[in-house]
């Protein structure tokens, strides 16, 4: 089979500048007579004798046709009213942010290894770190982790490094199920043991069980608002956990606008997912994991840290620091294997937090909480609807009907409502429950419509 001749203009590609003349001139300088000659170190018996069997090359027009066609086979909040949450929330996205993010200098730059030509990225990370500290009430934040689930993994591993000899970590059952699954994966070969503590009728962690489980553990982790949307009582949890490392997980980051920060209640570590800060839900990623810790833990921190310093002229500047924690220096003994992180999403979060600011973050949280409370009352008024958990919620709640959640949700979908997330797959015995999230994007009309559609669905099922 004949392969394309690199110097023939008909084989030029728009993403690859050098063409016929360039290639000829370069080959001459290199001193070989063909590009193939440069690949002689690859043994013939592992070389392809033909081309890969994949589609393309496509023009932008063909690319648009195919991908838009595929995207059109999704049903999304673009054409439905969505009440989906469960760790990914639809919030207001300020128009400015995406246009700033796509600036070449942010979008197409690399990790700021060379501070003199990367001050933009470095200062922005320093600001992001500061926002995280203000929101969580803790002292030191890193430059980002992959997402909320892996941030929890890193937190558990950090906590484990703090105490020698202990192998048990206590995790609330009401932490996002994906997060729990991810932790299990991460620690599977590290000789650690996970104890899960369940929840009570209020949807909060069982404090008695927690107290018992914590005794010989190295860490305890709870999520608040938890997977059921219920707010944990940080003080009570801290008291029950005693003096093990306490990890707070926050998967709905707009809650920081209204909910008391874990740092003020004896928690040493707060990790979570920053997607709620105006990041698109985009089927789960890219998002941004955050970790904020007490001052004393900073040298155990995984991931990158940006610090302030000065240049030779005494001018303030920012730089990656405390690198001896990291893989490129410490290699096998590093605090984490993370290298590439979620920088651009952390930058988007910084922009969101700055634009909304002190007042905006509070107002977003207030609107979420108030609209959720409004819906909660509307649902209470529907006789066949049960709200299984009595604890206080932020912007998400569990709804129970006499029927299988999937059937009710299918019914709502016909009304162009994405009504929630069925809990059956994650919690046995909760096959009739589903999780409903409300944000500032929902109008009163949409909430009323949801309640109406739900009771209609129930009566339909009745027949």
């Amino acid at each position, binding site marked *: 089979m004949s392969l394309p001749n690199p110097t023939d203009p008909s084989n030029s590609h728009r993403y690859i500048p050098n063409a016929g003349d360039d290639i000829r001139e370069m080959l001459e300088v290199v001193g070989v007579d063909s590009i193939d000659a440069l690949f002689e170190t690859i043994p013939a018996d592992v070389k*392809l004798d033909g081309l890969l069997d994949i589609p393309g090359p496509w023009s932008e027009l063909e690319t648009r046709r195919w991908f838009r066609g595929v995207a059109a086979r999704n049903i999304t909040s673009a054409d439905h009213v969505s009440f989906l949450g469960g760790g990914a929330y639809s919030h207001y996205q300020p128009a400015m942010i995406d246009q700033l993010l796509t600036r070449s200098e942010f979008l197409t730059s690399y*990790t700021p290894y060379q501070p003199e030509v990367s001050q933009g990225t470095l200062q922005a990370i320093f600001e992001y770190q500061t926002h995280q500290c203000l*929101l969580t009430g803790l002292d030191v934040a890193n430059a980002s982790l992959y997402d909320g689930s892996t941030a929890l993994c890193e937190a558990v591993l950090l906590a484990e490094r703090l105490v020698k000899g202990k192998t048990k970590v206590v995790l609330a059952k009401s932490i996002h199920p994906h997060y729990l699954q991810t932790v299990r994966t991460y620690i599977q070969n590290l000789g650690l043991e996970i104890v899960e503590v369940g929840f009570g009728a209020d949807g909060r962690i069982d404090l008695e069980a927690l107290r018992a489980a914590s005794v010989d553990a190295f860490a305890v982790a709870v999520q608040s608002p938890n997977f059921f949307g219920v707010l944990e009582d940080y003080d009570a949890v801290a008291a029950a956990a005693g003096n093990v490392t306490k990890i707070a997980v926050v998967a709905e980051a707009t809650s920081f606008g209204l909910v008391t920060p874990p740092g003020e209640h004896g928690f040493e570590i707060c990790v979570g997912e920053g997607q709620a800060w105006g990041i698109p*839900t985009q089927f789960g990623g890219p998002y941004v994991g955050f970790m904020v810790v007490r001052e004393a833990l900073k040298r155990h921190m995984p991931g990158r840290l940006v610090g302030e310093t000065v240049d030779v002229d005494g001018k303030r500047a920012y730089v990656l620091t405390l690198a001896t924690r990291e893989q490129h220096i410490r290699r096998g003994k590093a605090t984490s294997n993370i290298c590439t992180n979620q920088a651009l999403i952390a930058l988007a979060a910084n922009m969101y937090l700055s634009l909304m600011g002190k007042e905006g973050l509070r107002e977003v949280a207030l609107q979420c*909480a108030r609209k959720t409370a409004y819906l909660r009352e509307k649902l209470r008024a529907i006789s066949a609807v049960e709200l299984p958990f009595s604890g206080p919620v932020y912007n998400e709640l569990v709804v129970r009907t006499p029927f299988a959640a999937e059937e009710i949700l299918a019914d709502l979908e016909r009304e162009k409502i994405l009504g929630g997330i069925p809990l059956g797959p994650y919690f046995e015995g909760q096959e009739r429950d589903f999780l409903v999230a409300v944000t500032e994007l929902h109008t009163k009309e949409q909430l009323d419509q949801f309640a109406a559609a739900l009771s209609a669905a129930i009566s339909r099922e009745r027949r």
Partner: protein
Amino acid sequence: MTTTLEPEAAQKDVAQKSATEPLIFERSRRGRRGYQLPALDVPEVSLDEVIPRALRRDEIKDEVEVSEVDVMRHFTRLSKLNVSIDAGLYPLGSCTMKHNPRINEEIARTPGFAQSHPMQAEHQVQGNLELLWNLEQTLKEIFGLPRVTLQPVAGAHGELTGILMVHKALAKSGNARKYILIPDSAHGTNPASAAFAGYEIRELKSNNRGTVDLSTLEAAVTEDVAALMITVPNTLGVFESEIKAMADILHAKGAYLYCDGANLNSFVGIARPGDMGIDVIHSNLHKTFSTPHGGGGPGAGPVGVSEALVPFLPTPTVERREDGTFFLEFNHPDTIGRMRAFHGNFNVLVRALTYMRSMGPTGLRRVAQLAVLNANYIRARLKGHYHLPYDAPTLHEVVFSDKNQTPKDVHTLDIAKRLMDYGFHPPTIYFPLIVSGALMIEPTETEPKEELDAFCEAMIAIARESQERPELVRSAPHTTPVRRLDEARAARQPVLRWKK
């Protein structure tokens, strides 16, 4: 040509006070607003009925009060303190800084993708599943391996995923073993990932070509060895010509061959890891497949595996039914489990598939060809001026050292900083560790010849300056927004946040 000018004279963009941009917190002024929300349209009941007092905070102390204008100004000015691939060569070795096509950004913003939710029911996201399925098919063909997981969100995440699979596979056959072999030329994430997967590391010495001798490997592969983690081509850009023999040695002992695919850009479409006897490989889509680096991420690190490892893939996998519909398969009894919530960095995967379709089979092959030609062109032009510690033939990158300059007390760091005065981002420096004072240069296929020439001329000018005006190089950079930083101070008295 820049080199005929004093670079100080040559390197100027217009500046709008960017170099003195304060922190956003320092811009805060009471009463300023950067947002507006629709008025609350539900009854405003007492807040205590909504959330109990004890669980609330009154304010986010010290958070900013700024206007939209303040925010636009601030980040626009910050951006001007960064260099970018859109503005010029970014020759970071091992990082594959290539052109980021904007069609990828456009497609990723299609509402059907951007607004889809990770917890939606399968029938609602058939488009996303179809896309993931197509991406896996394409990567399978590129890798020459039977299955690929798309869950890992970065190279290191892929490494952990891969080694966990190896561990589980070996454990299943009775003995998970103790060690992972890693050449001394490897990237730091390799040992780190192996350690987090539960292994100890045994380092392999490279030979004088920078590669690993079969004899060295042979001697190292004991019954306790789980796998060799090797980068192909290695971090010097040298292809391990005996890769198949290595695979045989490992397989004979029941061990696995893990390939760090960070350097796939050098042979994509030319040869396939699967055909080399490789059992596991991750690919950094943010390198070879052009998804933007975003100042440090996000990325994606899909992992391809051989038949033996398929049962251990993370769950869920994406499968296709007879009728052409798609579903998520959770039923893999031997899976290592879930590597991350949801479906990985989905919208990075969308960009990567957009790129693969834009390149096609001919384009991807051309990528490797021109990446290698560009690197060898730089090697040929700079060889006389900089010391080449390993003169084995190289593919997509070339590693020089500062040996010719050290007599004048000019070191790799100085050369790197001086390049900034000529308007170039420096190469990767002091890596790989087996080269003292390494200058690791990877131009990628997306650099035009004239840019390579300008870079080479700048490097040659610096070599000359190192002899004639070493202090000028030692005190570089001179034209950047800030000059050399006191990095020791940053680490000694860490200031990691703004405080009022």
